[in-house]
């Protein structure tokens, strides 16, 4: 019983992190109708940047994070301007293949630059236990992940739903031509959405990199998690990612606690496949009207 409670508790906290991993992908999908296959690799790349910056340049991890956010925004904007914007009008397949190509390029570039070995960003909080009571415990890192994720998702939700910029982004995602007719520079909205995505993804990268070991090839695994979160939460729904993340996290850890640790990923994948089969538009997503 205690192990089930532990699994649910840790699953919820892990789900927060998953939601943060997926939120950028959801944002990109919501506004551009594009599935970015390189999403996981971009996150791992940001983790490497933060790691390198703390190891070589800065003492403060926050400073390192800010600098790598800036670098990642530049990379994201370049990717948007030169890769995605040039195929965005040609349907979903070219965009899928371009981001797939980008994913392969990023993975191999990271292997060449950083080597194939596992890395971990060590922070002061990774060893802290919030409490330990009998068989139950809560790690400080997991709690931090969850809190940061919730804060960022709330900020993004407010930004998208309550501000003028957010209305511009939503208008663009709703009807590009009409948005242009309102005087909105829609290509700029895409770039802003990409910058927001990169910021969230970079923070996710730091948290992932300080919670789990990561390799240049880890992006694939996190892409599937991001995809799962977005599918369960509904493509394009920002608050939905939090629910998607928690469902995925709890399922994985319950699977691990019932069938054994090796089955953690497998349970997550299988549940995802079942959900995709039953509700192809996501649990909270609405069916697309056309």
């Amino acid at each position, binding site marked *: 019983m205690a192990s089930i409670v532990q699994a649910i508790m840790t699953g919820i906290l892990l789900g927060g992190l998953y939601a943060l991993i997926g939120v950028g992908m959801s944002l990109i999908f919501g506004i551009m109708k594009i599935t970015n296959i390189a999403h996981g690799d971009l996150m791992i790349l940001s983790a490497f940047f933060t790691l390198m910056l703390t190891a070589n340049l800065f003492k403060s991890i926050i400073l390192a994070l800010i600098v790598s956010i800036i670098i990642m925004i530049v990379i994201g904007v370049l990717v948007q301007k030169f890769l995605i914007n040039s*195929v965005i009008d040609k349907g979903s397949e070219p965009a899928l293949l371009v981001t797939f190509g980008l994913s392969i390029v990023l993975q191999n570039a990271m292997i060449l630059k950083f080597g194939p070995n596992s890395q971990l960003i060590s922070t002061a909080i990774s060893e802290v236990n919030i409490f330990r009571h009998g068989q139950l415990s809560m790690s400080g890192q997991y709690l931090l992940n969850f809190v940061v994720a919730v804060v960022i998702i709330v900020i993004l939700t407010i930004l998208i739903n309550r501000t003028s910029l957010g209305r511009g982004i939503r208008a663009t995602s709703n009807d590009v031509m009409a948005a242009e007719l309102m005087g909105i520079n829609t290509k700029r909205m895409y770039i802003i959405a990409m910058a927001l995505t990169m910021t969230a993804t970079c923070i996710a990268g730091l948290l992932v990199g300080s919670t789990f070991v990561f390799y240049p090839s880890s992006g694939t695994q996190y892409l599937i998690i991001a995809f799962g979160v977005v599918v369960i939460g509904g493509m394009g729904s920002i608050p939905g990612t939090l629910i998607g993340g928690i469902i995925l996290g709890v399922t994985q850890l319950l699977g691990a606690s019932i069938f054994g640790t090796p089955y953690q990923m497998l349970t997550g994948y299988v549940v995802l496949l079942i959900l995709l089969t039953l509700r192809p538009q996501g649990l909270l997503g609405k069916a697309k009207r056309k």
Partner: protein
Amino acid sequence: MTEKTSSRRTKNIIKLIVLIVVLAVLVVIPIGGGRIRMTSVLILVFLYMAIAQMWNLLAGYSGLVSLGAQAFVGLGGYSLAMLSQVYGLPLWTGFVAGAVISVIFALIISMPIFKMKGVYFTVGTWIVAECLLVLFSIWKFVNYSAGYNISATYKLTPAAIYYVALAICVGAIVVVVLLLRSKFGLSLMAMRDNEAAAEIRGVKLYRTKLICFLIASAITGIAGAGLYLNIAYITPPSAFNISWTVAMCFIVVIGGIGTVEGPIIGAIIYVILNQLLYSFPGFSMLIMGVIAIIIIILAPKGIMGVVNRFFNVDLFGIKRRL
């Protein structure tokens, strides 16, 4: 009219002669046991050509962009390894089992997977392949993640593997060509051009796609067995690696998606580039990725698309005439 027909017939005869000469040259190459390097490179070209043809049959003709084709390469490889290594059966049984198991697996996963559309299908197939990767790593029956040496292959000469690979490749191309030239191919192309219109005209979308999926799975399974006949050592991370699909995707995109000639050219380029950059692991994939991105943006129909703009190439008589 008769002149046109006769000139077409002459063209067809020339094409046939060219194909026979090419095939004859390919058959002669390994004779005498020389040209070891060329033989080993061609083995890879043949096998990659076969799996790329299958990926193209799905992505280029049936609108099924899959990132999970590695599932069938792995199943084929494991069929070969298990039957020869664990049960001591002759190697050819591995190929049969590879095809059968792949088809059965494809049939089973088609039920959920075919409910998914577009990008959901793409990522769905990937998740299925990832499931196999995880499953095989924790499954006692397949010796966990340690995998197997396929020691029966040690006795094979490079020439023997070469002919197996050649047969698989020729077989794959023949299947695709016959398929596309048949009435089935016509409905396939109608479906690719306009799904809704094709359905109204009586094309059974689900059945048509499923048949393609099963054929592609079977041949990818056989080619997977061929690949591991050559590699002789199998583990889950290598067998179910996304890099198989990456290779297929790059070959098809570079050569020209939706053409039979495209994967042929693409496979030659892919294998040669990999050989040239052999001593810089990672670099070849990096360069390949950059080339693929540039091609998708600038020439979405690949090399064959560019070639077709100047010459109307139709090596296999697939294009329809009215």
